């Protein structure tokens, strides 16, 4: 699903036509407010957004969405090259910043990228949720051991750190491996990373 926001009706209409002809579902809005007022849906989507509009501008909308935690990949289109605006947009995570008149291939490529990125993001989101669900099954002691194991500490060191016996550490570690469904230490470390427990370099 591609959403278009542009205040110029004929531009809006022509873009919608082009994108629809490329096989996407399209919804179009005349202003940022109209877009924000639409009922939310989960389908992977991309936003084709005009930079300059009366009222809320394209950049304003990007900021609003970010603040709201809605991850939406945006392809900006603009009437004129404005370096500052384009830098701001790209920093905000925009897929591309295209200048009108927009060549169809450039636009569709950008949309495709956005859609793919949206799909990936959605996939990552699901996996993270699942790992986090596994982490939630750990007891507090297991969680402590988990957090230390993935840093590369030896059982002896962990035992000393937690003030328990080395044997106890071994038992907890086995349970963590089971609950996290990790076949190896390396896999456990990756799960910890994906689940947001540690960052690889901290």
């Amino acid at each position, binding site marked *: 699903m591609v959403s278009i926001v542009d205040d110029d009706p004929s531009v809006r209409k*022509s873009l919608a036509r082009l994108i629809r002809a490329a096989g996407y579902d399209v919804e179009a809005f005349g202003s940022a407010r109209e877009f924000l007022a639409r009922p939310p849906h989960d389908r992977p989507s991309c936003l084709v957004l005009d930079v*300059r509009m009366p009222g809320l501008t394209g950049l304003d909308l990007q900021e609003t969405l970010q603040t709201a935690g809605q991850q939406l990949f945006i392809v900006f289109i603009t009437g*004129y090259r404005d370096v500052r605006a384009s830098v701001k947009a790209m920093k905000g995570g925009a897929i591309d910043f295209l200048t009108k008149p927009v060549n169809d291939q450039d636009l569709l490529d950008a949309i495709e990228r956005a859609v793919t990125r949206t799909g990936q993001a959605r996939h990552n989101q699901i996996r993270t949720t699942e790992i986090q669900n596994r982490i939630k099954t750990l007891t507090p002691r297991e969680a402590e051991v988990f957090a230390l194991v993935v840093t590369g500490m030896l059982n002896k060191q962990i035992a000393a750190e937690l003030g328990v016996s080395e044997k106890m550490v071994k038992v907890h570690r086995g349970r963590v491996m089971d609950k996290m469904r990790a076949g190896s230490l390396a896999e456990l470390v990756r799960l910890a990373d994906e689940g947001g427990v540690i960052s690889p370099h901290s």
Partner: protein
Amino acid sequence: MRKPRARPRTEELQRLVHELRVQQLELERQNEEIRNTRRELEAERDRVADLYQLAPVAHLTLDRAGTIVEATVLAVALLGVDRRRLTRHRLHELVVAADWATLSRHLADVFAGAARRTCDLGILTSRDTVRLVRVSSVALPDAGGQSTRCRTALMDITERKQAEEGLKDSRAQFESIVTSALDAIVTVSVDGRVVLMNPAAERMFGCKAATAIGHAFDRFVQESSRKWYRAVITASADNDASSPGLGRLGAMTARRADGTEFPVEASISDVVGSWGRLFTVILRDVSARQRAERALAERLRLEQLVAHLAMAFGHLSAVEFDPEIQRGLRAVVGFLEVDRASLIEFSQDGKVAHCWAVEEWMDVGDFPWMAARLQRGGSVTVSRLEDLPNEAAMDRQSYLTYRVKPEVAVPLEAGGRVVGGLVLSTIGAERATSDELKQHLHLLGEVFANLLSRKQAELELQKLRQDLGHINRVATIGELTTSLAHELNQPLTAILSNAQAAQRLIEVDPMDLGEIREILTDIVEDDKRAGAVIHRLRDLLKKGEPELTVLDLNEMVAEVARLIRNDALMRDISIRLELDPALPSARGDRVQLQQVLLNLALNGMDAMQELPAGERTLVLRTSRESSGAIRVAVRDSGVGIGGRDVERMFQAFYTTKADGMGMGLTIARSIIEAHAARLDAVSNPDGGTTFSFTLPAGDDGQ
């Protein structure tokens, strides 16, 4: 810029009037003097006559030797000598020595014949005074026919002699006055015959007194003037009282012996004497003075004409130019009494740029030699075919065809350059070469030269103004570039996307023809939209002469609003249109007025830069004034003009903007003023400024 000429010289006229009065007084005084002298002369003559009649006569009897034989009492009294001393004494003893010879001759003559002899002798009286005595003697024949005695009458003529001398003096004085008088003096009898004529009169009439005396004075007076002088004479001849016309100054036309006529001023006085009544006519030739007066009057008229032209040409707009020049030339034609007048204008490169003429005109282009000569600063005088210069040989034929008309052409110079020429046709041949005419032409030429040089300067200024206007417009458009580019980009974007969508749809089977048709319709629409933007731009950038058309100001305001819409959008300014739906149309130059409005709108937007985003509002309003005029106003909610001088705001290079040229308002004002309207700026009571101008409603504006 030339100053208007001084006011007509009234003091010159006054001086002339004064001079006239002085002359009149002098003439009257002279007249009076002559009358007095004449009166004295008459009195003297009468007194002498009395003397002759009343003087006592003394008698003596003398012998051949002059011895006194007898003496009457009167003789004794006359001679003042004792009778005893008288008789037997020779008369010689009583006579002054100088007259002895006279006395002796007298006696000899008396005794030589029978006739009475007379002589004047100086007699020494006893009182030691010499008296002049007229001695008249006749011999007394005795019985034998011999004369030994003579009877002598003595008459004291001392007084008479003195009177006679006085008379002679008076006469001499009178004659000297009459002879030396500059004015002609003619004495005329009651029946109108010339009695006397002085040398001045002889000169004036070209006629010797001898041939005029005795003849009618009428021959020296033109028929139409005879009535006046005759009336004066008849009136006083008929009754004893003097005619009221006497002594008064009158104007007459006199005639010389050769028949030529000339104006004179005359006064008539009368003298009554024993011979009856005579009239003295004093005449003064006033032709020279009348010429001077005419010259002065003409000069005055010329000055007035020049002043009038200078004034008329003083503030001349381009529109009035041609008719005003025509009027000026017609005034010149009327003044100089010529048939035609033409004004030639030379351009900077010396070509004939323009020609104005009163009455039909042979194009100056047909006479290149004349233009060339004027161009070199030379004047042209053609009064006869022979006067045509050599270089005009080719034109002889056309001059013949048109029948040569005397012409005078003078170059017009201003600022050290020949800017044109003034050509006059059909002037009298003798006038064509007169200095007076040339002087007139010189003065008039100066006025026209000034006019032409000012016109050229004005044209340059106008061109400069147009250029500046164009530059300003380009600058204005520059300010709008991003905004306009965006506006042009929108339809282009739509067209491209639509076309590419269509390309894709064509590939799909089955083709959605309905959709493709719709796309094509949209493309056409968007293309038109892009075209309109370009058209607007081109209009704004157009460089050219102002063009007056009937305008819908509402539409024009809406158009300007469209132009600034994007700019306003970027600057968070909301634009509000308040258009009077019943607005009549107006006349004006669309592009220029649009530029003014655009300028005012952009100024207003700039003025609101400092305001918080929500408070920036620009109002464009059209309304109808009570006078019927249409007002177009641009109102901003900005910082306002505050204490700034509104007048100074309209001056060139006045700007409060860092990147402004300061030309916008100046040009806006000059454009509005060219539309016979006014550009105003007022502070709004609730902040900000309203700039507005009014235009007269167009033809349908009722």
